[in-house]
């Protein structure tokens, strides 16, 4: 039996002999976002108690993550980054995504998900290459198993499906985790990716970080759905709804979904309800489209504070550990700052060699032209011809 034949799906017969089909009930999401840490109420009764080691690992990662976001934003002000879309407020999702992955699994991030890549182990300087602007992409995707940060919305989702499908065809136990925003779910590529994944039962998990906004457009103008997780049933994919500021809950849901995917159980759609505390990017002015009190309401549900409280309540964290963690994060931020303050090495001639496997004559001529121009500028008459005048 081939992988494409394993899944029996909707094949309607004439109404008189209508046969039972997939039961939609198990595909529908929970009525309330799944949470472990709970809201203001504190420790939850229900749910399996997560292991202490995991809790501590998540805590460290969100603290580092928050600091990383602050540092990257600061780097835009210093002109060291062209732009930075911060995931401040979404650290729980980012970190859970990075840590839930198995070693051979792949991550498919969007422009906002640099922290997820960092949590997965990608070098933070390399991950920022796109946003610094020295190249489009800075890390080794095959070695890190992290696809390039994707800018055209939702276009990375079919890639994740294809990679997961390819792995399955090869018999490799690999799952892919694809990240997308609430706005991105409106794109046709979201739809096509979910449908392919379902029909081909590809081992892929879609994590929608519903942070309430697509730039300035609030969710109510983006969808009229009961929840984004309700989109799953229309593809025959289970939908899960989770508190996206609860790192433990997100981690648990993703781990479960990835396990299921790897063992042939097909795709899952996870909606993590979260909030973008900062503006869309440093270039955006969020006060134009949202009120301060909305932001404040979400600050009260801050993912870092939530996890800190959860750990304290469980007796896993004290003041000392908190400051130790913060200091460690500070040191990493310093390191990032120092490394980002070095000018990247730029080679204008790199414009040409990667366009094709072998250069065409046409590109070679253009490379020669550029080399001539650069040489003329360097050894020129000092009038600045070639380089400065534009």
């Amino acid at each position, binding site marked *: 039996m081939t992988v494409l034949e394993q899944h029996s799906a909707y094949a309607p017969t004439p109404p008189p002999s209508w046969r039972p089909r997939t039961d939609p009930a198990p595909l529908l999401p929970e009525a309330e976002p799944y949470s472990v840490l709970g809201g203001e109420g504190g420790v939850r009764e229900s749910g399996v108690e997560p292991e202490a080691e995991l809790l501590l690992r998540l805590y460290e990662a969100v603290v580092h993550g928050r600091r990383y976001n602050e540092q990257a934003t600061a780097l835009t002000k210093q002109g060291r980054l062209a732009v930075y879309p911060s995931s401040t407020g979404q650290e729980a999702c980012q970190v859970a995504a990075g840590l839930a992955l198995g070693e051979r699994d792949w991550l498919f991030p969007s422009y906002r998900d640099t922290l997820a890549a960092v949590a997965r182990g990608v070098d933070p300087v390399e991950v920022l290459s*796109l946003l*610094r602007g*020295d*190249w489009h992409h800075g890390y080794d995707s095959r070695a890190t198993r992290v696809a390039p940060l994707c800018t055209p919305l939702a276009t990375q989702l079919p890639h994740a499906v294809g990679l997961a499908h390819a792995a399955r065809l090869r018999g490799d136990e690999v799952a892919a985790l694809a990240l997308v925003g609430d706005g991105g779910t409106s794109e046709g590529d979201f739809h096509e990716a979910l449908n392919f994944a379902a029909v081909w039962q590809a081992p892929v998990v879609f994590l929608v970080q519903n942070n309430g906004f*697509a730039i300035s457009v609030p969710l109510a103008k983006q969808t009229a759905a009961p929840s984004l997780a309700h989109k799953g049933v229309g593809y025959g994919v289970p939908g899960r709804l989770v508190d996206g500021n609860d790192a433990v809950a997100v981690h648990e849901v993703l781990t479960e979904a990835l396990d299921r995917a790897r063992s042939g159980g097909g795709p899952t759609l996870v909606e993590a309800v979260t909030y973008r505390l900062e503006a869309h990017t440093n270039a955006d002015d969020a006060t134009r489209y949202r009120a301060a009190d909305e932001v404040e309401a979400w600050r009260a549900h801050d993912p870092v504070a939530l996890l800190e409280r959860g750990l304290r309540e469980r007796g896993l964290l004290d003041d000392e550990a908190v400051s130790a963690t913060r200091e460690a994060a500070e040191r990493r931020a310093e390191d990032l700052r120092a490394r980002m303050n070095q000018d990247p090495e730029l080679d204008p001639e790199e414009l040409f060699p990667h*366009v094709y496997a072998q250069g065409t004559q046409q590109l070679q001529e253009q490379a020669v032209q550029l080399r001539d121009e650069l040489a003329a500028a360097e050894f020129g008459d000092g009038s600045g011809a070639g380089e400065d*005048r534009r």
Partner: protein
Amino acid sequence: MSTAVRQPPEAGATAARKPATMGQALNRALRDAMRADPDVHVMGEDVGTLGGVFRVTDGLAKEFGEDRCSDTPLAEAGILGVAVGMAMYGLRPVVEMQFDAFAFPAFEQLVSHVSRMRNRTRGGLPMPLTVRVPYGGGIGGVEHHSDSSEAYYMATPGIHVVTPATVPDAYGLLRAAIASDDPVIFLEPKRLYWSKADWNPEAPEPVPGIGKAVVRRPGTSATLLTYGPSVPVCLEAAEAAREEGAEGWDLEVIDLRSLVPFDEETVVASVRRTGRAVVVHESPGFAGPGGEIAARISERCFHYLEAPVLRVAGFDIPYPPPMLERHHLPGVDRVLDAVARLQWESGWTERHPDGGGI
């Protein structure tokens, strides 16, 4: 072709002119068009409350309400497809695509419907819609934020392709685009959004409507043919050229303004006069706009040409990252280099005589 927009009598009166940016002129054009015609509807991602990421739609939702200036879901094919339906009902949608590369999801709607609906229905369902596309580079944008996609649009019969290079043209051409009964791809040069001119929004200079090029700088030695973001580059090059060459060159600069329809008359007249031509644009050269323009000139001016028509264009590569884009964009020196190769002395030599044995 002339859907010339009527202008108040004092058009262009210098008195009340004040510095204005291209972005402001575009904003004003939208506002005036919406005031003049209740069927004009603006739609796109973030065009409402935010006023667009480049603020070109600033204030429109406030003045005209969200029904006239609507934030849409994030789905470009859907945006253009919905606009098609609105146009079928008689409205005049003005769609904003947030960045050039983000118009690609709407490509099927554009090519298979927008460009063909009038023809398909023998005029029964015209498509009086405008698609505003910020295009081109030079603003330090990361991947997918600096494409020049005009070659795709030019190769699609049934749409007009228009691009302003000055503040008054931005106003006049956008009004003409919205007034046109045909679909217009309105390409806005991103890096000129903040370019300024003295301009009176109460009495904007008249623009002759879609399909007319303009001689931005008369000259006799050679013609620079360009549009949009490369117009200022060519004007600067023309100034610099007065000092170059044996006795200095007097370059004519033509701003095409409209790539479709193509103003062959103005272009051919100029090149027949100067005998030399360079086409300049940011878009990759191979199969880019300059191919058509150079081919057309070479055919129509064959006996007038003193030298081959040269092209200065972006390289044939994906648009580079911010830190390298200046090496890609045609600048003044690259334009002057090309001008210098226009066979001013007798005896034609190739640029790379040994390149590939040709």
